[in-house]
């Protein structure tokens, strides 16, 4: 029954969307597992970046409606990319702080 449901859903949304939805879900799952199990902090940061990419992919996929391309999720993703790079920069600066001998300012 699940396979027939999936078949009908793929038929509704189109193979491209279904394929990229599969990619987004696998990326999210891999990144989540890595985020919880990795020991090195930088690896967790990389996993966080991949997780954010997966979420962006989901958002862009929801923008492809039957009426045309919805621009609102695109604007959200643009904002999200810039926020993701800000997070990365702050985490890296925090991480480097551990290995520098200078006093804090």
């Amino acid at each position, binding site marked *: 029954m699940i396979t027939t449901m999936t078949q009908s859903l793929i038929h509704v949304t189109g193979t491209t969307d279904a394929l990229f939805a599969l990619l987004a879900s696998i990326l999210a799952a891999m990144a989540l597992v890595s985020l919880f199990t990795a020991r090195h902090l930088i690896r967790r940061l990389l996993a966080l970046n991949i997780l954010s990419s997966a979420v962006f992919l989901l958002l862009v996929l929801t923008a492809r409606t039957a009426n045309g391309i919805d621009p609102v999720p695109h604007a959200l993703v*643009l904002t999200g990319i810039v926020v993701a790079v800000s997070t990365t920069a702050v985490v890296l600066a925090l991480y480097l702080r551990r290995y520098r001998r200078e006093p804090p300012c």
Partner: protein
Amino acid sequence: MLAVDLLLTLAALATAGQCLLLPGLFRAVANLMAFGLVMALIWVRLDAPDVALAEAAIGAGITGALLLTAVGQLPASQRQLHHEHYRVPRRFIPMTIIVVFVGGVLWATMLALPKVGLVKEIAAVLPESGAEHAVTAILLNLRGIDTLLEIAVMLCAVAAIWSLQRAIPPPALELNYPGLTTLARWLHPLFLLTFSYFLWQGTHAPGGAFPAGAVLGAGGVLLLLTGSIGWMYRHYYNQLLRWLLAAGLLLFLATALAGLLMTGSLYGLPPQLAGYFIIAIEVAAALSIALMLMTFYLFGRPRS
């Protein structure tokens, strides 16, 4: 086109998997940069050219530069990831099961998601917004408050980084690698031209403040890397840098207040003036995004 989609999917999975599983931090970071490029191609395939432009400049360029520089600063003992043994089947098998299960559940949920969208509503208000391109209109007028808060978030990130440590000085690259400095010198007019081109294009086609800021920020990081912008590191110019960093947010706030005074609602730009307002906000937002991306690369507060 299905073959292209399959190739892109496999490439994204391969680079992401290598990024998460390979030992060696440099290799993982290089794979993340390749993943960013593949994602940029996927955005093009999914009809999101604005996102593709920003992702190519930020995901593959600036994130990679930040990560590589940070990894280069780490002591050698911290650069290896070899104590993570993913090849052991005892851990590998349950992880694969978890990934397949979680991924399957997510996939089924995603396929069942209703796709409503605001296409008609946006198209109806587009003529009054002052921009012909829908994404620009949303970012700078219809949901201007989001962009305002996003620039505030970036400013908070800069403040957090500056409160942590002193800036890491640029490596003396021009002595060892003379080609890089010359490359930066040759390319910086082109970066400026591309920036202006994206800004000019943003009101009627894919482009606009975010891709323009990302491209200029990437060019600025290249200049910082070659030590061509020395003044950002000096204490003497600190005050100037702070004002420049705050300028984008301040101008944005001023526009919001002007809208409040003229139409009675925050960010309610009067339709006949909206075009000029959008150009002003676009330039300010792009410049401040570029400058803040460059400031991230300092990893700390500039001091003498």
